[in-house]
């Protein structure tokens, strides 16, 4: 299973919504309920699934308007490669 599929599974669990289909360009505004609180739940679930750790500044940056699922995937890949 590639990272995108695994990430999609995490989204289904956190948002309790199996209809979510992730693409690189998907933004927080396009996923119902992706607010500050769910963002942290999502980060915790991703950390657990991929066995990685995000820095405070990274978590904050991922909330910026110019960020999307693609940048999140990029960051995950980068951390997995380390």
């Amino acid at each position: 299973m590639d990272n995108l599929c695994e990430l999609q599974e995490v989204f289904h669990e956190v948002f309790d919504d199996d209809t979510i289909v992730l693409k690189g360009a998907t933004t927080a505004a396009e996923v119902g309920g992706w607010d500050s609180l769910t963002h942290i739940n999502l980060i915790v679930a991703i950390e657990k699934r991929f066995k990685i750790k995000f820095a405070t500044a990274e978590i904050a940056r991922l909330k910026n308007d110019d960020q999307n699922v693609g940048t999140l995937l990029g960051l995950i890949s980068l951390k997995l490669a380390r």
Partner: protein
Amino acid sequence: MTVGSLEFLGLLLLASALFSLVPTLPLRRAFLAACSAGFLWTLIPNLASWVALAIFILSGYAVAQLLRKWPSAVLLWAYLVILLAAFLAIKKYSFLAYIFPVVLSIPVSIVGLSYMLFRQIHVLVDSMQGETEHLTFWGYCNYQLNLFTLTAGPIQRFQDFQQSWTQLTPIPAGSYELSKTWLRILIGVIKIAAIGAGFLFAYTKSYSRLIEIGSGHPTLAVVLPWFIALFYLYPLYIYANFSGYCDIVIGGAALLGISLPENFVKPYLSRNVIDFWTRFHRTLGFWIRDYLFTPLYKAVAERNPATAKSFAFGCYFIAFVLAGVWHGSTSNFAVYGLIHGFGASATKLWETYLVRTRGRPYLKEYLQIRWIKAVAIAATLHFYAFSILFFPGPLDKCLAPIRILVRTLKP
């Protein structure tokens, strides 16, 4: 010297003209550092304050470098405890009078210390997590003591400062952009000196009149107009004054090559308290979110994901009370923070209720309904106006108008 004063604006005009003539990056950095040092010189009152400031900056930089090399939560927390104790003592928090009264007589006063503290904590945490590349002493001092962010917001992140610091060329490109920047500075001056000052004058008069009336036995009809006046005037003053200040520093910093984040985005059109803190003094709101709320809630969610959402309300209260206390040394600021913690929790509770009873798709529809949006904006504005009643001074002073109003309501 204060931002917005004639001497500040005159010197800014001169500095920006000279800055564009400085040929190399090291010289431009030295030029900006000299401007910041000159500004700082006008604000630090005595030798003891200079020494305290030096220890504050030096220790922060040294610990940040240690944390970069040897990340250690124990070291971070040990330093944070000392840092916060020093902060409370220097800011002379009123509760210290009961525990360490001697602290209140220390002749140290550092303008902008609250903002320095937040920048320092951010650099320390980010350093420990490997998020501060190119942290040099020269860069760090200029980041902490930059004249445009020294006394108040916006709270710039080190990484953003570093981006400007590596180039340091005037941001407005061409005469049109330059005119726009100066126009923004001018608008900032008008907001502070004319509009804000006008609102403050009217507020002060209304407050004095209400207290005067309240000393007798007034009726509700007599008290209400004065109460309404001060209820709306103070939020108007705060917005005009602080957003005007930010217009000046953001414009001024751009002239000297520093890009500062925006701090106000139509805050009085926020639809709830959480939204409000992403629009009003938003760099503070984001700081609270990133360095108080997120670590607190994340720690809970990691341990117990199933029940984490219930603990979120507690995290809101803790984060907002701490942020409230950060605003000033008297108890009224804790009340201000508590009210906002309540507002944020109520927002989340209402949203959770809607999702549970009607489903998430309905929430999306609900947020689009125009009249609900209008009601939510009006409610948030009035909630903020109520909370800011606890801002202007010690608790007794803040409570006086409310007491007078409540007295008239009694039969």
